[in-house]
């Protein structure tokens, strides 16, 4: 089931929390939702989950507008702070949520059993939620979101406050789910997005500033290759001026003068390593290191969201 967001806007007082954003999420796709705090991620997710009403623009779930009917039963939603009824035992809570989603009696038993298994809650299932550790609470949160086997999952920062092992477990869980469902999840942890998501959406001040895979974002943001190179048997100044003169090279910087280490940034869409190699052959310089350098997602994120 698709999510189609069309020209969505939302204002709080004078502040535009979400400003005319449009994007699609398709089944079998995991979309990572990135952005600094207060960028409008949570507001957008709340509107898709139909907690907040759509002001202007529209959200279509499987082609139907949320303005015309409630489509809540299609959606599993894990709110940001993972609110739970702390005084309830895990099983009772899951049964309650399942009943709220309108599952039949037999189905409730079956789904609760399955969620306990999938989310690894078996040991803790009879405890009160308040007695659980943060990681287990998070699992209960995920279990309640998935209890009715929704086609769409909206997860607002599902891995905050978890230890690295738990993060990997939850990440694997989301990946597995993402094969059949439409998943939209937000996070601050950038490596997590690369590890989990098929597509990344970065929003800043209510607007979409980037949309694509991690690879295409790198290209869009940078467009040029970066190499770290070490050249022996040549004078630093001569190497610098000769390499600068190459048509495909945009910028050269000396990283370590004693070792003749340079950073070469090529012009957009013009690979420079062949030309550099030819030059070195011609001049009888020896290349002892040549390291292609990837722009980090962190840098892209900073580029797009700092102004």
């Amino acid at each position, binding site marked *: 089931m698709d999510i189609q967001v069309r020209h969505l806007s939302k204002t709080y007082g004078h502040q535009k929390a979400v400003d005319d954003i449009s994007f699609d999420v398709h089944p079998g796709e995991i979309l990572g939702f990135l952005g600094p705090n207060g960028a409008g991620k949570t507001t957008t997710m709340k509107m898709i989950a139909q*907690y907040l009403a759509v002001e202007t623009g529209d959200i279509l779930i499987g082609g139907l507008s949320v303005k015309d009917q*409630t489509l809540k039963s299609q959606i599993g*939603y894990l*709110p940001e702070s993972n609110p739970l*009824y702390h005084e*309830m035992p895990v099983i009772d809570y899951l049964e*309650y949520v399942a009943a*709220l989603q309108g599952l039949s009696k037999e189905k409730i038993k079956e789904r609760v059993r399955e969620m306990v298994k999938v989310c690894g809650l078996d040991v803790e299932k009879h405890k009160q939620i308040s007695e659980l550790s943060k990681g287990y609470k998070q699992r209960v949160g995920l279990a309640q979101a998935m209890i009715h086997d929704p086609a769409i999952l909206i997860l607002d920062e599902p891995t905050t406050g978890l230890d690295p092992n738990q993060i990997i477990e939850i990440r694997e869980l989301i990946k597995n789910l993402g094969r059949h469902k439409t998943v939209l999840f937000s996070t601050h942890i950038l490596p997590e997005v690369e590890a989990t998501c098929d597509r990344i959406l970065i929003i800043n001040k209510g607007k979409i500033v980037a949309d694509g895979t991690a690879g295409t974002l790198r290209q869009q943001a940078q467009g040029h290759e970066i190499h770290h190179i070490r050249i022996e048997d040549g004078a630093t100044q001569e190497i610098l001026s000769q390499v600068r003169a190459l048509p495909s090279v945009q910028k050269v910087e000396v990283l370590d003068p004693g070792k003749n280490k340079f950073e070469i940034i090529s012009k957009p869409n013009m690979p420079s390593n062949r030309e550099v190699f030819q030059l070195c052959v011609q001049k009888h310089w020896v290349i002892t290191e040549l390291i292609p350098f990837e722009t980090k997602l962190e840098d892209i994120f900073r580029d797009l969201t700092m102004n």
Partner: protein
Amino acid sequence: MDKILVIAKKEFGSFFDSLVAYILLVAFLGFSGFFTWIQGSDIFMRREADLDVFFSVARWTLFFFIPALTMKMLAEEKKTGTIEMLLTKDVTDREVVLGKFTGCLMLVGVALLFTLPYYISVAWLGKMDHGATLTGYLGLLLMSAAYIAIGLFASSITNNQIVAFLLALLIGIFFHLLFDFLAAGSSGWISDLFNTLSLSNHYDSISRGVLDTKDLIYFGSITAIGIFLAEYFISKR
């Protein structure tokens, strides 16, 4: 309807999980039992086979206890954020409010059921007006429904339970007492208006055994307005 019952059952259950229910039952039965059977103008002193003392004590105990039951129902969910979880499930705002209303009314119903031994004992002791007793219970239920709706409204506009409790009491005291005083202190149509608004007037006429549609409409309207306002305030988000 199913969803309302699901929510009602959960709320009813959580009263017992949090001991609120036990405290209410013990205190309610304790107070009303003490004044009905033991203290002051009790049944043996008045030598009349009716439950009038019980009804007037119950009226006051419920007046104080109901805000204590309703204060957390929406305010706490708003404070902890569970309302977001609840309202993104396949339920409407109205179902949530009605579910909570029903859960609370069920607890009051149970408290009243526990006073059946009073009724049986009195009926056994003397010749009793069964009709008036029955409408007395009905009056208590209708009054409770109205106060629960007021309490839910108070709980819906704040996320502080104490504020919700005090506000519910404040609104309640007008219906319970102050409209009566105001009616006595004024004349003409203003006095009539306050008389109409006073909950005690309507409650008294029902507990005397007179079932008037006017009274039913009165309790029904307060309940409906309270529920409607609660729904309105939680839908504003």
